[in-house]
């Protein structure tokens, strides 16, 4: 039995090697995703292009503009002369925010200690707009505090109050690469290997070679195991590749046990191989297999907590997320890599993953045998 399985494995390896471009892609794709995610997935925007319409032109108005500049959030790139000009810059996207200081700002500040300015924010990208929104208020508050100190002659630092000491655990610098890389490891394990498996079986179907395999004394379990072994190896290799680049290049610390990560990674691989096999029993052609995987990939990406926090989603989507195996794997990879926790904390996630593996593989095997 082992001999027959290995024969299939050898045949699959020959298939893989004969297509060196696809092989290269298998190894390059995770690296590309890693680099793109590591560098681009960040919403902490600084240096927003800002236009200033200073209708006041006093020392006070210049101080305010300087305070905004000094905050690092805003790059004062344009001084404009009219609201139309400001609107045009924001319409064109050249400026994301605009400060309008009305005439009389300086005078009212000196005489009444109070003044107001208008702050325009391009809201089309909410993550940027939220940052700009709070930065606009924070800077003005700091200015107000200074003013209070001057007017009342008091030191705000020494005032009564509650001092909050935030301590950020696990990812103290709040780096998005540290957040993304464990998630990416889970995603690669889950998605890549299910595409490989689904495609390799759909290809045999499409080319009609599956019939030749059926007439051999091969049992369906041998066929399945033989076909997936090379892809398990490729996926494990990918996992190590991503881990190494994450640690060495992006400086992501691995706080937990690497062996546990690999062991549970193998469990996640079984789930995705099960999904891949299941897809291959549904799809008649490679094209169908590709689309089916895509179709599944989206809920996987969005409802697993990979990009966006599950807590912020509507309840219904949160419920659906429980049937998405990637959800559990992401908790595991982040738990081990960032939090440094072990099985005593993650056991329930591991159990969920094991259940998925058993159910998916059993379903796939039953359907597969029927088809053969």
């Amino acid at each position: 039995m082992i001999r027959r399985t290995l024969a299939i494995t050898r045949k699959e390896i020959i298939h893989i090697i004969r297509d060196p471009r696809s092989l290269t892609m298998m190894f390059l794709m995770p690296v590309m995703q890693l680099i793109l995610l590591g560098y681009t997935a960040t919403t902490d925007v600084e240096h927003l292009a800002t236009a200033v319409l200073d209708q006041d032109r006093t020392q006070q108005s210049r101080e305010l503009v300087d305070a905004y500049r000094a905050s690092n959030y805003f790059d004062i790139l344009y001084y404009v002369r009219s609201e139309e000009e400001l609107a045009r810059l924001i319409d064109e996207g050249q400026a994301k925010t605009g400060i309008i200081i009305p005439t009389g700002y300086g005078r009212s500040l000196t005489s009444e200690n109070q003044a107001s300015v208008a702050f325009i924010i391009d809201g089309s990208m909410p993550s940027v707009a939220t940052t700009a929104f709070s930065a606009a208020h924070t800077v003005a508050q700091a200015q107000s505090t200074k003013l209070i100190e001057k007017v009342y002659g008091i030191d705000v630092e020494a005032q009564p109050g509650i001092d909050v000491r935030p301590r950020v655990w696990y990812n103290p610098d709040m780096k998005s690469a540290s957040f993304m890389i464990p998630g990416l490891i889970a995603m690669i394990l889950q998605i890549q290997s299910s595409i490989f498996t689904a495609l390799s079986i759909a290809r045999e179907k499409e080319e009609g070679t599956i019939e030749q395999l059926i007439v051999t004394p091969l049992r369906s379990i041998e066929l399945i195991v033989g076909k997936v072994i090379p892809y398990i190896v490729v996926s494990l290799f990918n996992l190590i590749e991503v881990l190494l680049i994450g640690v060495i290049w992006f400086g992501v610390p691995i706080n937990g046990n690497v062996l546990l990560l690999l062991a549970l990674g193998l469990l996640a691989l079984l789930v995705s191989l099960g999904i891949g096999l299941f897809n291959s029993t549904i799809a008649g052609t490679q094209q169908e297999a590709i689309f089916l995987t895509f179709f599944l990939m989206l809920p996987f990406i969005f409802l697993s907590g990979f990009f966006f926090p599950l807590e912020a989603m509507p309840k219904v989507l949160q419920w659906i997320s429980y049937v998405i195996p990637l959800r559990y794997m992401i908790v595991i990879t982040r738990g081990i890599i960032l939090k440094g926790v072990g099985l005593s904390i993650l056991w329930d996630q591991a159990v969920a993953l094991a259940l998925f593996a058993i159910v998916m593989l059993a379903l796939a095997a039953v359907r597969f045998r029927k088809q053969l």
Partner: protein
Amino acid sequence: MSSRIFYVIYKEFIHIVRDPRTLAIMLVFPVMELILLGYAVTTDVEHLPAVVLDQDLTAQSRDLIEAYRASNYFDLTRYVNSEEELRRLVDKGQARAGLIIPAGYGHDLKKEGKAQVSVVIDGTDPTVATTAFSAAQTIAQAQSLELAQEIMGLDPENLPGVSVHTRVWYNPDMKSVNFMIPGLIGLILQFLTTLFTALAIVREREQGTIEQLIVTPIRPWELILGKVAPYVAIAFFALGEILVIGVFWFGVPIHGSVTLLLALSVLFLLTTLGFGILISTIARTQQEAMYLSFLTLIPALFLGGFFFPLEAMPQVLQWISYVVPLRYMLVIIRGIVLKGVGLRILAGEVTAIAIFGIVIFSVASRRFRKRLE
């Protein structure tokens, strides 16, 4: 000539209709993506599960807990008795933040007017952590201000200061859906047309049927046009789907001209179909074609500004983003849908996608013709 194109289109349609599952996926795909993006993509975190370790148990500590609860940012669901318990809950991910009020908090606050508390934040997800971080401080500041006013007898209504009136343009409620849906149009246009065109042509090559087409009197460009036309139709159907659901279900307002949007989408298709044809001339198998399509789609997804703001990226990636056509298309779609601007403002982006379209499409069709001959 036109009848020959028609036959190729007809043949391609038969291919599509014979595979109803793929067709269904093509049509359901944009809807599913829309719903997921519309509901699942939100970074405005509220109701973070949080735990409280109140070692003080005074009226003052309860006041502070109330203030955190009332803020909507934190759901103080659990009270724990020790730091270990708090740690365990945060480790498990059942709590994202923890408020620790040390013994003596109430006493210090009464006697000295000053006290200290700790807030523990799970930093794994930086977006969530940043929100929690600033919310924790804002709440304490508000409490402090009340305290200061009480002690010093200041009138909060009449404090000196600069007030900022923020006006958020284009998307005043800062809703993620309004941002995501226009972006999705660009992404789906590229995704569907590039991948499908590449796969449709490579399939003929893989199965050897392309030779049969070559020996017919069909000219290469007729073959290309005929093969891509059905996918263009599907892409536009998807575009319509997204627009209709976006407007009627998610309430996304379209401020600009829909006709202009459609016209510029056609221009953009030159680029994406060009990519598809180009890939089909390089790839020998469908698997390769899929990988090569990914190779154009994944950078477009990340460097086009679909999810993450380009401004926040390293300078090198920002430069690279200039050769990503989707970047310009997203500016155009968001400009038309959200900002309601027209050609006058978008002239630069339109020129860019026109140049990309002409260059990529002509390179692709030249290579395609060569491969046929």
